[in-house]
């Protein structure tokens, strides 16, 4: 599906765009066609989060030897981890997620990541988002290709929070940006009919700027309408913590309200902890606490739609096993991926644990990758989104499922 086809099918080469948005049949149609579509939300932690301090192998003495300043104590001790399965424990700053774990809707896949040796943030992020490790030439992201497969040609089928399009959603299919914070339903000068009509005329071509403009106008109409209704209801609710949690909750409520929105994406920065990352408390703990609160707000906002949602939390790579002497960690390899959702077989840490002895480490310094990150995406595409194998091979080209993880 090309952007152009999308535009032709929706009749958007007309100049009276406002009428098109208001009355076009396909919006009404696609909103009612499928009342409980399956949804996928990806949260990307940019900077390479230290997975060994999130899902902590607290039974391994090597872990405590390698990280005297930053290790998280064993369960029961002051600032200790929350025991998950007798072997791994969760960072205490993530205690808000305990109920999800207990209800078996939160799972982790450890020693997971890219099968490419790069320790560059930018290469690793690109590979994770393009879904084609080792190939920098890919021109789009796997979520955009996924959108192409499930396409129902609405302007808001995929929504990213923030004003940049992340690589994972970059490509031929139109996506919408959800403005962060502020007042997204505020009227703009360009919303005045006279101005809007003039710009519609200016941007009515087939070039990329015109197409992006048209998508922006449509998405804005749709999202503002949703937000207007959502905010009327939300006024009664308790105020949320600021920042990430607020954005997450807003995205969730939009997705819960508008069945057209099937894919969501958010990115969070600040995980590149080369120095002073802290242990039970400190920089990483603070960030994790915001993340935990945000995920809880996301789940709360989804409400009953959580049943039909899978949430994936990922990062480009993990960090060195050994702490450095600045109380931090450098760029590493294997990491932990998080999967949440109503149908997730949670309450379990998946993946082959490779061990932490020097000869078990990747290049004698990092956690080994024993599960390709695509092995985690695959069951979500297949079992959750019900996408057939040939379509999956469009989304994840040159990928053969290596091991089956029964996540869903």
């Amino acid at each position, binding site marked *: 599906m090309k952007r152009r086809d999308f535009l032709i099918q929706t009749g958007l080469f007309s100049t009276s765009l406002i009428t098109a948005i208001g009355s076009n049949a396909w919006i009404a149609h696609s909103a009612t066609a499928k009342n409980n579509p399956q949804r996928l939300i990806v949260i990307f932690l940019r900077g390479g989060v230290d997975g060994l301090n999130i899902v902590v192998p607290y039974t391994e003495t090597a872990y405590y030897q390698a990280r005297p300043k930053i290790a998280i104590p064993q369960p029961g001790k002051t600032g200790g981890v929350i025991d998950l399965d007798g072997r791994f424990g969760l960072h205490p700053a993530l205690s808000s997620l305990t109920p999800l774990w207990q209800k078996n809707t939160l799972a982790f896949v450890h020693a997971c990541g890219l099968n490419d040796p790069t320790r560059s943030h930018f290469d690793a992020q690109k590979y994770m988002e393009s879904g084609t490790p080792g190939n920098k030439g890919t021109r789009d992201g796997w979520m955009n290709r996924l959108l192409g497969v499930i396409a129902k040609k609405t302007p808001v089928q995929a929504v990213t929070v923030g*004003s940049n399009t992340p690589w994972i959603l970059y490509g031929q299919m139109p*996506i919408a940006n959800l403005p962060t914070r502020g007042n997204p339903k505020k009227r703009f*000068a360009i919303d005045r009919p006279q101005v809007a009509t003039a710009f519609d005329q200016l941007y009515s071509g087939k070039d990329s700027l015109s197409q992006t403009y048209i998508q922006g106008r449509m998405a804005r109409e749709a999202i503002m309408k949703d937000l207007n209704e959502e905010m009327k209801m939300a006024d009664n609710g308790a105020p949320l913590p600021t920042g990430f949690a607020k954005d997450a909750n807003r995205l969730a409520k939009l997705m819960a309200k508008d069945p057209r929105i099937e894919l969501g994406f958010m990115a969070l920065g*600040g995980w590149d902890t080369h120095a002073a990352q802290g242990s039970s408390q400190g920089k990483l703990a603070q960030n994790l606490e915001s993340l935990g609160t945000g995920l809880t707000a996301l789940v709360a906002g989804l409400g009953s739609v959580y049943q039909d949602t899978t949430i994936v939390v990922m990062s480009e790579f993990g960090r060195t096993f050994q702490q450095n002497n*600045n109380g931090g960690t450098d760029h590493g390899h294997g990491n932990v991926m998080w999967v949440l959702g109503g149908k997730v077989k949670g309450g379990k840490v998946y993946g082959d644990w490779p061990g932490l002895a020097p000869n078990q480490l990747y290049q004698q310094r990092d956690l080994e990758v024993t599960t390709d990150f695509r092995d985690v995406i695959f069951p979500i595409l297949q079992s959750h989104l019900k996408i057939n194998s040939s379509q999956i091979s469009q989304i994840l080209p040159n990928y053969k499922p290596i091991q089956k993880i029964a996540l869903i």
Partner: protein
Amino acid sequence: MNVQTKRWVFSLLLLLISISPARADSKPVNPKILHVINRLSFGSAPGDIQKVESLGINGYIKQQLSPDSIPEPESLTRQLAQMKTLSLNPVQRVQYATTISQGVTSKKEKKQALMGKSREIFQETVTSRLLRATSSNRQLQEVMVDFWYNHFNVSSAKGRNRIWVGAYEQEAIRPHTMGRFRDLLGATAHHPAMLLYLDNAKNKVNNRPDAKKKTDGLNENYARELMELHTLGVDGGYTQQDVIALAKIFSGWGVETDHNSNGSGFKFNSRHHDASDKVFLGHKIKGQGKAEGEEALDILARSPATARHISFKLAQYFVNDRPPETLVKKLSQTYLATDGNIREVLNTLFQSSEFWDQKNFNSKFKTPYQYAISVVRATGMELKNERPILELFGQLAMPLYRCESPDGYKNTKEAWLNPDAMTRRLNFATAIAQGNLQISSLPPSKNPNQIKKPKPQKTLPPSQKDNLNIVKPSKKNQPGNRRNTQTKAATKSIPVDYKQLMMTLGNSFSPQTQNAIASSPQEIRGGLILGSPEFMQR
């Protein structure tokens, strides 16, 4: 035809007539002139086209390549001179930010006073950058500051860097934008803002004779990004072993803020330096203290991989998102032949057939920074209130001095063109053209005519804690919102004259754009020009 229709047709005709004199008056502008202005400056300001016409294209290029020879506007020099923190060195900045008047005693007041000091420093940093970018005659210099600052990015959000980013730009970036790359590289490597941002200030080995593991204190962050981002490029042929060797070479390079020091903020601490001999990129480097770092910088600056990496980025910035390989080769050759003379590399670029290939004209999508600066320049407004611009940067996820990631802001279309950004740019264009943003009037807080003084506001509202790299637009001053603005009519911005705007920009618009403008009411034409596809690109 009824009366109404007749009247409509008549007024349309009038509109068409009223716009045509602008076209008729000015003879078609040479597209090469528009191209050279678009790429060597932040866009045309009133009179720029005539300036280039009189200098000739080559004369203009030559002049811009020697910024010191170009006189600055008196108002710019005066405004910069009024900013007292601008010329402070890093150590003086620390002193300035930590000294408060003796009368202040309570803890709360002290804290507020200290925050006010660092806010003042940062505000002057931001204001001076925007003033220069919009009104300096040394436009290529300002363009190169944008380029190199992003190449050697440091974020103000880390530690003390809120007060140091300005010094970093003044001392490490500005003096070397067109000099030798090695000098630029060295200046960034020694600067406390960089040492802090990429953690090298903490890269210290335990050098006591009884220490067990000398590598314990290494911090790889700077060494890795120095090779990946600043010099060789990610495919520049280095290994993890080279990262570690380079981290050892730079161990002990740290920060000094003692008031008795030389003020640079740099200190080499031999006690924290790994004194062993190293092998770096196949070179044997003898353990010799600070000189090892200089030797490593020499090796990196001379490397063909660096020549290529820098050449690629320059070609991408100045010519095309996917720059022609032939051009990258030419630039690399100049780089290597001149020992990394940036001015010579730029000259090669501006003389190249690739630069002058018509298919590259107007092919670059402006970044939010380039867009906002070019809007102000095109309108000829004097920048007195930077707030609406900073808000646009926040909305478009490009807050000034706050790129968290060490690779800096990208300058490619794919990074900045998205549906939300388009609507926000057009909104900005419309609001500024109608005089609603008050860019050229004093902000309410500084306006003596102000009846009701609002609380002073933060320059860049930081999004703390959660680290989402996004700035919250405040309701009060969002573009287009005039309810809360109290400025008197006397200082209010006036709507932009669209005819003047057309002239300034050389009336280089496509027939479609011209028709859209001509068939729209006069009061929105300025906004249409600043929001046109042609003006989104450079």
